[in-house]
């Protein structure tokens, strides 16, 4: 027997399932810790995609519980359209089974690997099947499945199937148990926080052990589900072209105009001319050589770029800003949605946001939030085109310090939305370096950088004005008193100076032996209506006028007064106590307010 025969005995096809069992890292299951995040990511992606398609506002529940020392139970439940019973085993029990692989539009999941990989991972580590409950509507019953994957055949293996009672009228619940730990807890919460930022229409509730975290929606607008478009001639390769060419394709002209976007009769004839084939020839009859000529001609032909708006769903500047405001406390937030653009025939849109100051850590690298099709990218930050684009900008132009990445209390968000996001690997952690995409990211960030610079220079100017204010507020009364002592007169009333010079709303807090006095003087030209927040250990029971409401937290009382003050008028309250604490005004442009805390 020759060697070839010998080898032939060992040669056999490998099941996809078997392949992925050996190459878990390709799917984001390199470690049990990361496995949890990947599982939740895949389940949440599916839930959001399903809700979007069904035009419902996503309401997602995530439960994570420790079953034993080593086994963790993960539950993800959504209010999506549900899955018809006959499809459930395939969706969860077969790798590479999905509805979106052949569609050209923006969606989170695409290949149909993610959730079934989680099922596979569970059965490999805990040996337990995955339980799925799904219901498609109030008139249909809910079904409960226990599903596994047959590793050798990559076919679903239904362990049990039964009709059950379920309180949701429609939706899907998946319950997966695998060996892992909760080391990634912080990162997981961060992942969901990020998810919530780019999905402002979703409400996500997380129960992890005994802790509950809610990421509420900031918008009740159902987002328009992107529509699938036909492929663009520039974004196509020979293999795909061959698959599209069938016996029923009609003439080449019909094939081109019907199967591709942006191709009309004129363009179709131009392509045929360049490919040196006849327009009226039957498309199915093209020889492989002619097919090659055709695809070359398609790349050469001048064809308008694909339509961007219908197949993509950018989040929008307003919603990004509102979402960030909800999750982060910052002094400055701006966002940009760039006009659509195209790389290799694939439409894409870049969205970016910059946040500054507030409670962001004042030192260290900027916090970078990367997203692709509304999914946070949590790993391999350094390998990502977004990071490279950020590092390539000269942030010093915008008065931001930089050591490679910009530093300081800075948050940078970049969202890449595309019908085909070019990831560096199947674990979808980093975006590949595509010049068109990087250019758009840079343009968006430079635009935002200019806004930030303006904000920072205005803020510095405000600081100067505040210095002026402090001089008037803190030193003048003392000067007035001393001068009055020298000339042996009563101290002059210096409030007209304050008003004249400042034209501001002056908020004063002063504590003496008699207690705390909060005084607001409106030196602006307009009526102001505002809320005064005073947080201190004093209950202020005897405050006159009393606060509109009071809440207590860890021994600190938050006292809130709702006040309206006419131009040139003052408002004052006082209560007994030792003072200290903080004071805040809401409802008035901060530039119009001068805070003078004599206790500080």
């Amino acid at each position, binding site marked *: 027997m020759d060697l070839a025969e010998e080898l032939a005995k060992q040669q056999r096809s490998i099941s996809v399932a078997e392949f992925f069992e050996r190459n878990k890292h390709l799917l984001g299951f390199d470690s049990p810790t990361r496995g949890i995040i990947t599982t939740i990511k895949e389940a949440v992606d599916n839930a959001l995609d399903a809700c979007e398609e069904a035009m419902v506002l996503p309401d997602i529940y995530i439960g994570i519980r420790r079953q034993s020392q080593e086994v963790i139970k993960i539950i993800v439940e959504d209010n999506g359209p549900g899955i018809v019973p006959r499809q459930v085993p395939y969706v969860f029990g077969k790798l590479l089974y999905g509805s979106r692989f052949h569609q050209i539009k923006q969606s989170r999941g695409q290949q149909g690997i993610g959730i079934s990989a989680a099922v596979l991972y569970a059965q490999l580590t805990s040996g337990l099947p995955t339980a799925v409950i799904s219901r498609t509507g109030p008139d249909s019953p809910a079904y409960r499945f226990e599903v596994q994957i047959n590793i050798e055949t990559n076919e679903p293996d239904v362990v049990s199937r039964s009709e059950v009672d379920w309180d949701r009228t429609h939706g899907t619940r998946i319950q997966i148990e695998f060996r892992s730990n909760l080391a990634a807890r912080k990162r997981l919460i961060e992942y969901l926080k990020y998810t919530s930022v780019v999905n402002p229409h979703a409400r996500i509730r997380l129960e992890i052990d005994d802790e509950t975290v809610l990421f509420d929606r900031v918008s009740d607008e159902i987002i328009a589900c992107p529509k699938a478009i036909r492929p663009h001639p520039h974004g196509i390769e020979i293999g795909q072209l061959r698959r599209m060419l069938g016996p029923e394709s009609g003439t080449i002209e019909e094939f081109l105009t019907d199967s591709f976007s942006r191709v009309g009769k004129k363009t179709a004839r131009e392509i045929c001319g360049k490919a040196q084939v006849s327009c009226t020839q039957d498309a199915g009859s093209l020889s492989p050589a002619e097919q090659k000529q055709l695809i070359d001609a398609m790349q050469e032909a001048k064809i308008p770029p694909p339509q961007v708006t219908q197949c993509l769903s950018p989040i929008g500047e307003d919603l990004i800003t509102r979402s960030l405001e909800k999750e982060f406390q910052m002094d400055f937030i701006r966002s940009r949605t760039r006009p659509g653009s195209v790389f290799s025939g694939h439409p894409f849109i870049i969205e970016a946001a910059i946040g500054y100051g507030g409670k962001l850590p004042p030192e260290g690298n900027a916090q970078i939030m990367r997203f692709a099709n509304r999914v946070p990218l949590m790993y391999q930050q350094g390998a990502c085109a977004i990071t490279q684009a950020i590092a390539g900008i000269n942030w010093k132009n915008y008065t931001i310090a930089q050591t490679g990445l910009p530093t300081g209390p800075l948050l940078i968000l970049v969202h890449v939305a595309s019908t085909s996001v070019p990831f560096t690997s199947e674990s979808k952690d980093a975006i590949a370096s595509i010049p068109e995409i990087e250019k758009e990211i840079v343009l968006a960030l430079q635009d935002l950088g200019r806004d930030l610079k303006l904000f920072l220079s205005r803020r510095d100017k405000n600081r100067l004005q505040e210095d002026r204010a402090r001089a008037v507020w803190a030193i003048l009364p003392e000067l007035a008193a001393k001068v009055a002592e020298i000339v042996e007169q009563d101290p002059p009333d210096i409030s007209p*100076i304050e008003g004249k010079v400042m034209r501001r709303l002056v908020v004063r807090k002063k504590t003496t032996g008699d207690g705390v006095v909060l005084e607001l003087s409106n030196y602006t030209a307009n009526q102001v209506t505002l809320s005064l927040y005073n947080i201190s250990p004093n209950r202020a029971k005897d405050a006159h006028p009393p606060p509109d409401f009071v809440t207590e937290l860890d021994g600190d009382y938050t006292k809130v007064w709702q006040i309206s003050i006419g131009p040139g008028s003052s408002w004052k309250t006082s209560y007994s106590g030792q003072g200290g604490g903080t004071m805040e005004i809401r409802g008035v442009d901060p530039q119009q307010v001068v805070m003078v805390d004599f206790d500080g």
Partner: protein
Amino acid sequence: MADKKLDSLATERLIGIAWKWYDQMRDGLLPSISLPTRTKRNIAYDDESEVWKYGDRESTRSAGTAKSALHLLKMAYVIWFLKTQISQNRSSTLRELYYISEGWKRAKFQAQDESNFLIEDLEILTDMQREAFHLRPEEDGATIFGPMKLREMTRRGARDIHCQDDVGEAGYQIPTNVETVELLDHEAQFVIAIETGGMFARLIENGFDSEYGAILVHLKGQPARSTRRILNRINDQFGLPVVVFTDGDPWSYRIYASVAYGAIKSAHISEILATPKAQFVGVQPSDIRDYNLPSDGLNDKDIAALTSELTDPRFSSDYWKEQIELQLQLQVKSEQQAFAAKGLDFVTREYLPARLSDMGVL
């Protein structure tokens, strides 16, 4: 010293500053002060009094910034303190004032320079001298040795003193407030002000004062106000020429300039402090060359000081331009004592008689 009239005038003018602020505040204005800017670009030669005074450049400080408001607050504290001090007939030194401010919280001085500067501001604003506020400097006054008689009002009564016969080898020490000294009589030809103690002692030892009828005044480096005031008065009252003998370096030229023209920081009282007719004896850069005096090389700071003097209006004469440019060219400087290289008597036998004849003093 207790001049009631002067006291009430000083008090009145100090309170006047406070009244101005009081009125400004009552009218809803920010309190402010206006002062001439105290830089060399803002001193100008006054033809009538023949001294350098502040020019027209004024800067106004109003309490619109924290820094200026604090400056005004400190000034208010000082006025209040001086008013009290004058009314109680007490006095204090500049250094004591600095320490007294410790108790003024926010208005406390950060350094003595700051309080000294503020007192100068008050002198300008009131057009009076700090002595009128009962403030004394710590610095020693000059020492005088020579044929002249004066009367000093001491705490133990008036004392008549002859500055050769009634004093020791060290000479007569003038008090910090020379307004208590009355000049009586003299048998002198001229006054020679000397920078260093070594040269002052050399001239006494060599009997220069008796031989040439010279009143020797020891400047002790940069001369104190009282020293400049007494030179001004001897020159004015006795009509004696005043010459200044210093080291041959840029810092010593400034000593001469402050005797002759007044100092930049006291240009507001130049008229009573400066002796415009005072002449510079040496050491001149040309002396270093002509007598081949032992010398040191100029350092960077010396060169910067010389270059700065070329643009100083007080050194704008042809004589000074020539000498400074010569020194920059020679790149050397010499001390007064360098004459000792030619023998201990050289300076009194050869150099000074020759130089003073040249100048027309002898």
